[in-house]
């Protein structure tokens, strides 16, 4: 396993979004990122009654397809995600696991009947990716509303928080990451 993070589009995802995610992780954490070929739209996870995709099933699929030489495997999709008990999720990650998935569907201002705003969308995407990456390393939700690990149950939470971990979560992130890198190289 290398110290590379793989970003995987599911369905069609704009290249600038994927590039921005990669750049954000590289810049903030010094981790190399690569963008893998896209996966097909996850028909297997579609729930007709809800008109949404079961994120847990997607996650299971990702675990099966996860490349061996990657530290973390993060999927990005435009489809609307849910877990059976909740109406929707912005993303889902295996806690201390290799895989995570984020949805852009509810990050777009248009979802809230607002005009498109590429900067706002990018900021939301970055925050959501960093949040799920944190979970995949082992971090749980933070009580600080400004921290990127604060639980976003509404888009307003995402907009309020910063694109950074609070000092404590940052320390934890580094600790988990070091642990992860050591085990990756042994």
């Amino acid at each position, binding site marked *: 396993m290398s110290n590379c993070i793989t970003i995987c589009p599911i369905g069609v995802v704009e290249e600038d979004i994927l590039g921005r995610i990669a750049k954000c992780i590289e810049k903030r954490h010094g981790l190399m990122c690569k963008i893998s070929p896209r996966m097909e739209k996850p028909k297997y996870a579609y729930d007709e009654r*809800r008109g949404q995709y079961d994120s*847990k099933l997607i996650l299971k699929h990702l675990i099966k397809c996860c490349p061996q030489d990657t530290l973390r495997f993060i999927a990005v999709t435009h489809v609307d995600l*849910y*877990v*059976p*008990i*909740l*109406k*929707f*999720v912005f993303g*889902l*990650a295996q*806690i201390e696991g290799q895989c995570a998935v984020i949805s852009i569907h509810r990050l777009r201002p248009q979802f809230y009947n607002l005009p498109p705003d590429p900067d706002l969308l990018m900021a939301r995407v970055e925050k959501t990716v960093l949040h799920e990456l944190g*979970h995949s390393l082992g971090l*749980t*939700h933070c009580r600080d509303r400004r921290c990127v690990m604060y*639980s976003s*149950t*509404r888009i307003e939470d995402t907009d309020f928080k910063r694109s950074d971990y609070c000092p404590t979560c940052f320390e934890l992130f580094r600790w988990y990451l070091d642990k992860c890198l050591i085990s990756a190289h042994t």
Partner: protein
Amino acid sequence: MTKRPRILVVDDEAAMRESLKDWLMEDDYEVDLAASGEDAISMARDTSWDIILLDLKMPGMDGLETMSRLKKVIPETEILMMTAYGSIDTAVQAMKEGAFDYLVKPFDPDEIEMQIKKIVAHKELVLENILLRRELAERHQYDEIIGKSDAMQEVFNLISRVAPTDSTVLITGESGTGKELIAQAIHGNSNRCYMPFIAVSCGALPDSLLESELFGYEKGAFTGAENSKKGRFEMANEGTLFLDEIGDISLKTQIDLLRILQQKELIRLGSEKVVRVDVRILAATNRDLQKAIKENRFREDLYYRLNVISIHVPPLRDRKEDIPLLVKAFIEKSCLEMNKEVVKIAPSALKLLMVYNWPGNVRELENVIERALVIGLSKEIVPEDLPFSRKEMELYTSSKSLKMMEKLHIERILDESDWNISRAARELDIDRQTLYNKIEKYQITRGQD
């Protein structure tokens, strides 16, 4: 809650259980899963949770029955019902039966997070309340009812053993020994501590007033009863009623009281309706109730009802080793109330307090300290600040030998009788010659003071 809140998810659908677990784990909750009500009840035998998320519709034992059985095993756990849109009425029913709230599946992420945070906050508040009350109860033991003497340690021991029970307690002791504080400590350490503690000074009220105070009355029950009024028994429902000076109540009130103690129900004055009450009775008296029974002033059956457990508070003269602690506490309390810098007590003044007999007990000591702080001019309480005459001071501060006590006593009587030997001899119940002999023996001279 400093530990991670622990949550049990009970749902027959694996996908619901699992997704809820994943979601809750992101919030760092410790999550257990049960696939049925039966499984949850079986798990509850050796595990407890802060919150249970319970599905309402399950095959076999449904959510309502599961909740009712879980509440018996782990009553402190809060239950959040989960329901499909069509069964909201049942969910409302569940709330009436003790569920904290309900959530309609699938939840809004915001909603579930808010509900759980609400329960955690609620439980933190309950815990804080318990801790505060415990702290308060400990304070009762160490601050308000102060005593390191063996006699008081025995009282504390009794309080801690008696408090968690529902037994009636008769607290006896001289006036001013702090019987109400003992009653408050029993209540504060009991399972009823969240409920009211109502004190009634039976001796302070005329019989008719005491009757309406205790049992309440209906509008128009007597002239002046313009509105219905709950009595102290009803006010103390599920809590504790402290009946002080129980030895002073009339025989009529004794009968009424006995009826309530036996039947746990009462009828308000002017009413036909029977009201059930669940009240723990603590009673206190400074009278000798055994003697009152012999003199037919107190009913023996009531005495035995009240005297299930008795606690005797010793008089201060029998626990003088507690005086320095009490003095320190009263100085601090009074200085705080007077917004005054805490002062010390001079050893000579403390010595005086230690030898005094304290017929008014702790209450008298508290009054003496308060008075000394009001009239005292220096930064410490000195003998002159205490309300004892100079002769008394000498009497109490001098040697405790019998000879010295006799000398001081004769001096005092001579002074009081202005050295009229005949009067002093009469007062001392000795003849004049014996008095002359003692004056010579002790070399007492006039004006020696």
